[in-house]
């Protein structure tokens, strides 16, 4: 099953895409919150990597909307702000992971594997 990367920084999208390609996982990409949310509503993904601070809807908003609509796809929130972890978990703890930037790829892989196994 495909994953989705919602991230405004093109190089980070490239990094995650390359890494997951090596691990044999195909990903879709969105470069801002609005595009990402559209794709989430239209397709079903195995996991979603969400940035918080970006154009359009921000990551926490997207997570909130998703859960409201009953979308329980595992979400991996990546942010430069570690202190937002608590805010993220206030919305949902179920299938939500928090990865502080700079992301450790090994940690990311652990979480992706965990998410994929849920599907």
């Amino acid at each position, binding site marked *: 099953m495909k994953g989705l990367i919602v991230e405004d920084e093109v190089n*980070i999208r490239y*990094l995650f895409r390359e890494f997951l390609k090596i691990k044999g996982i195909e990903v879709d990409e969105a470069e801002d919150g609005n595009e990402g949310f559209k794709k989430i509503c239209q397709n079903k993904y195995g996991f979603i990597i969400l940035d918080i601070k970006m154009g359009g809807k921000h990551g926490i908003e997207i997570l909130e909307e998703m859960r409201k609509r009953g979308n329980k796809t595992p979400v991996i929130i990546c942010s*430069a*702000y570690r*202190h937002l972890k608590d805010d993220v978990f206030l919305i949902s703890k179920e299938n939500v992971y928090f990865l502080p*930037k*700079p*992301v450790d*790829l090994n940690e990311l892989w652990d979480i992706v594997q965990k998410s994929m196994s849920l599907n």
Partner: protein
Amino acid sequence: MGGDKRKDKRNRRQIREVDFFMVFRWIMVLLLLLLSIYSSINRSNIHFVLIVTGIYVFINIILRIFFTGIIEKPFSLFFIYLFDIGFVTSVLMIIGEIEQNFLLFYLLTILLVSMTGGIRTSIPATLTSSFIFFYFFNRGNLIDTTYLLKVIFIFLTGIMSGLWKEIMDSKIKMKEEEDEKKMNSIKNFYKNIICSIDEGIVVIDRDGNRIIENGNYKNLIEEEYDEPLVKNLKFMIEMNRPFSTSFMTRDRRFILVKGYPLKNEMNEIEGGVGIVSDITTEKENIDFLNRTKNLANIGKMALYIAHEIRNPLNIIKGMTQLLEMKYGDKEYVEYVLENVKRIDDIIEDLLSFSRKRESIKEEIELSSFIREVALSIKNDPRYEDAKILIGVDEGMRICVDKENLRKILVNLITNGIEAKEEGAKVQIFVTKDEDLVHINVKDNGPGIPEDIRDKIFDPFFTTKKKGTGLGLCIVDKLVQEEGGTIKFYTKKGEGTIFRVSFPLNKERKEVINYERAHSGR
């Protein structure tokens, strides 16, 4: 001093009066002289009149020049008066007009002497005049009614003018006393103002002699600073420009000194006023505010750069990990990752100024908590050689945010270890007084040099090769967040003690007090 001034004033008034009296005597003498000359036109005794007048003038000049002190004394007025009466009578006798009615001259003399000396001199003057008048005019005939009427008139003039003088004197005296009272109350009012304020005040004259000095001046300025201060004031008087300066005393108080030229109503400089205030608290508050402001600015900046730096950092870290996967080189990759972490740690430190973490207070047992922190530090290979000694009584509890206290202790202990390159020894001991628990972290380093003691809590101030200069700054902030205070005691070559003090858990204290109260029964 007040009494002396009063005497001075009275004396001056008396001298004025004596001069006034003298002038009138001269006028009287001239008048008499003119009259005698006029009366002597057809007589041959004009020379005698001139000789007597000459003697009179000569004696008066001698008296005025050489015996001023005697003339000015009230009792001597009587003798001067006698002399005058004698003169008047002699002239009248010489010109042979003694029978004529020259009563006016006697009255004038009595009036003058009364107005100067009061009733004390007017009575003898009146008696003497009456006697002379009786002797020369009446030839001892007491029954002469005209003579008696004249004597009564002489007496009335003497007593009335004497009394009038006394009344005027007492009025003037009352006015003077009133003025003095007013002056005193004004003086006291200003004195009270000067003594009531917390500032020290010193006033000097042009030569540097102090005129006023309040109690707080002595309290604030020790002897060693007093002389330079007065020197500064003197210099200011020369320059005619106010000055302001501050300095730190040996016991680390900040003193602000302001000097102003003391000008009179003619705008001439008469001296200088120095105002001294202890601004230690104000300075500490300003420093604290500046520091807080600085930290808040750092926090704002950190929030911005955290995002801007961590994204590229993410790419560097990720790409390096990808390189490792692709080429299997671990050694070089390790270096990159280690330094990425270093940058990331700096950002995390900076971010700690941008947010106030919700403090979660819980009661902790200090002894075991400190041991746990020390152990975690000893487990770090960088600090494994250091000695950490802990002297804390078991069972001591305080209520703090665990994570904040951990950060505070880690920072202080690792700082202490890093203070000595080899053979570092850090002692942690806890003391307690009524309201506070003091956690002391003592190192065996070289001590903090005097010139940087004020700066050690400033952000980015560091003496270490690898430090960010944020450690103590963060400690300071966390201690404040926990409602505590931090102080340090340092001695060259002997090390430094950092003392963090927290208020004792209030509820806990009440329990202890309760226990004490009950065990005492």
